[in-house]
């Protein structure tokens, strides 16, 4: 087993660095329901970290905790070696955390281009007056943001649908646009909630390739939730396994595959809690 405290180089030559995000003893309740029970794990710079587990295990809730949308009753979130104070979701986004959603959350009334441009909002510094007359800084920023967005559009190969209202797109493309919006923000940490759910094999292959390329080319750290075990095994460096709000496994794909508790959870063995 690899030493998990030092940075190392993977087989395919990527460098995995220090711990970027550290979740410590997170507990999250909704009324009486404990969606997350005392879970700790970390995400290291440059890695692809998968979170797996059956439906209702608390995976999405975990991402929501990282995004700052859910506030856990107990536990701490450490980011870049510092304890994160309580903040609003938009402040979390400004720290360089971008994400996609399990149920696509695009802005249906806007075009693809405008949707992706919203990913650049955190880079807009010009004030309202400058924007009102559309001169100077405002115009310059708009052009810069557009250039960045066009690179993302090229990268994800969605040039042809730039001006289409997202409401009219098929499901698979919507998922891709959502990824584009997250990428446009140049995130340090990218959270993907079931990016391949409901896709056919070909679409899944495309999406896998994009995720790998993002990680490889831009060095973006990625945390992803996925049900397709094949995909998870192929993509991820390390895997967290959740079941009924508890962490039941954590390690390399091989470790996890051979973990008895994980096998039981997936085979539906009766729980004793």
């Amino acid at each position, binding site marked *: 087993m690899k030493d998990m405290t030092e940075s190392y180089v993977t087989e395919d030559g990527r460098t995995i660095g220090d711990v970027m995000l550290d979740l410590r003893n997170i507990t999250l309740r909704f009324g009486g329901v404990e969606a997350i029970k005392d879970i700790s794990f970390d995400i290291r710079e440059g890695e692809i970290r998968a979170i797996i587990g059956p439906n209702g295990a608390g995976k999405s809730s975990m991402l929501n905790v990282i*995004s700052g949308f859910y506030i856990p009753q107990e536990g701490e979130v450490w980011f870049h070696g510092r304890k994160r104070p309580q903040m609003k979701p*938009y402040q979390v986004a400004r720290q360089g955390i971008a994400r996609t959603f399990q149920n696509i959350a695009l*802005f249906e009334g806007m075009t693809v281009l*405008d949707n992706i441009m*919203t990913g650049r909002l955190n880079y807009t510094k010009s004030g309202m007056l400058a924007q009102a007359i559309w001169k100077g800084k405002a115009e310059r920023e*708009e052009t810069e943001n557009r250039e960045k967005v066009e690179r993302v559009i090229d990268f994800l190969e969605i040039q042809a649908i730039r001006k289409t209202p997202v409401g009219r797109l098929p499901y698979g493309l919507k998922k891709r646009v959502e990824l584009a919006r997250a990428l446009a923000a140049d995130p340090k940490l990218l959270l993907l909630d079931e990016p391949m759910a409901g896709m056919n094999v070909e679409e899944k292959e495309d999406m896998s390739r994009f995720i790998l390329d993002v990680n490889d080319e831009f060095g973006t750290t990625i945390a992803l939730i996925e049900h397709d075990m094949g995909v998870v095994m192929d993509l991820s460096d390390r895997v967290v396994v959740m079941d009924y709000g508890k962490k039941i496994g954590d390690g390399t794909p091989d470790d996890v595959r051979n973990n008895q508790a994980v096998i039981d959870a997936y085979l539906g063995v009766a729980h004793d809690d």
Partner: protein
Amino acid sequence: MLYREAGDFKTSYVADSQTFPIAFDRYRYWVVLAVAFLVVPFFITDYTANALLLPFLIYSIAAIGLNILTGYAGQVSLGTGGFMAVGAYACYKLMTAFPDVNILIHVILAGGITAAVGTAFGLPSLRIKGFYLAVATLAAQFFLVWLFNKVSWFYNYSASGQINAPERTVLGVAVTGPNTPAWASYLVCLVFVTACALIARNLTRGALGRQWMAIRDMDIAAEIIGVNPLKAKLTAFAVSSFFVGISGALFFAVYLGAVEVGEAFGINKSFLVLFMIIIGGLGSIFGAFAGAAFLVCLPVVLKLIGVDLLGWPTDLVAHFQLVIVGLLIMFFLVKEPHGLAQLWRLAKEKLRLWPFPH
């Protein structure tokens, strides 16, 4: 082909995000502006100004304002009448307190004051949403009208409780008061409409507009990807109220000249402007103009047909107007939520292909 997009390639992102990306639209825009500024003033009569042009221009500003709040930022307001009243009374107080300052500056300041008031009434939008908020904005409507009615400081203690616009000039020509020539009041309103439309267009196609629309389409996701909802909603209220305030100031000072608050800025005004943007098209600057034009013309046309042609009594025509407006609102919400603006776009798409439909 009457309408061409082909062959009009963009070579830069600047060109692509301009107001009218298609050259043909750009030409038409300049032609419309030229006619509005250089031709219409020579032909304008008191009747066309008062029955059609002035209300059209002034309501367009209000509709642009409400469309920013409702069409772009998704916050329905039923307080437009009350905010127009703020603009009107602010303008009146400024005009009478500082008679030497140019009236145009007063109108802009009135817009600013309304923006402040609107922002204050927008604060609850951070906690309450949808029609809860719509109903909450009625609080602004009723409270403001009551305030201007009861607190005599606002109408300078006049016995009638009305406010009257004293004569003010721009470049030596009267633009308010009874001696104003029709072309002068028209030009003042036109200048404001043009400026407001440009500002609105710039704001909505840029970063701020995207924040507004993101909040409108999915507020939670917007916040998670980095939109500060407080800032997005309050700027929408501020910008929207700024325009509505300007329109209220012009409505009072330039158009009516004398105003009684309950009559001029009652809840029906709020509905009227809301209807304009529903019929014209939610989330479209052009739609604000289309809706304003439509609802300003409708009573005039109905009166022409009903009273002058068919000889019906006026109250009967007024009842018909209610029925027609109600039907239109329901029709557009069911069939074409993007209103006349979308119908226009579809018509253009047909034209673009004509005469080769496929």
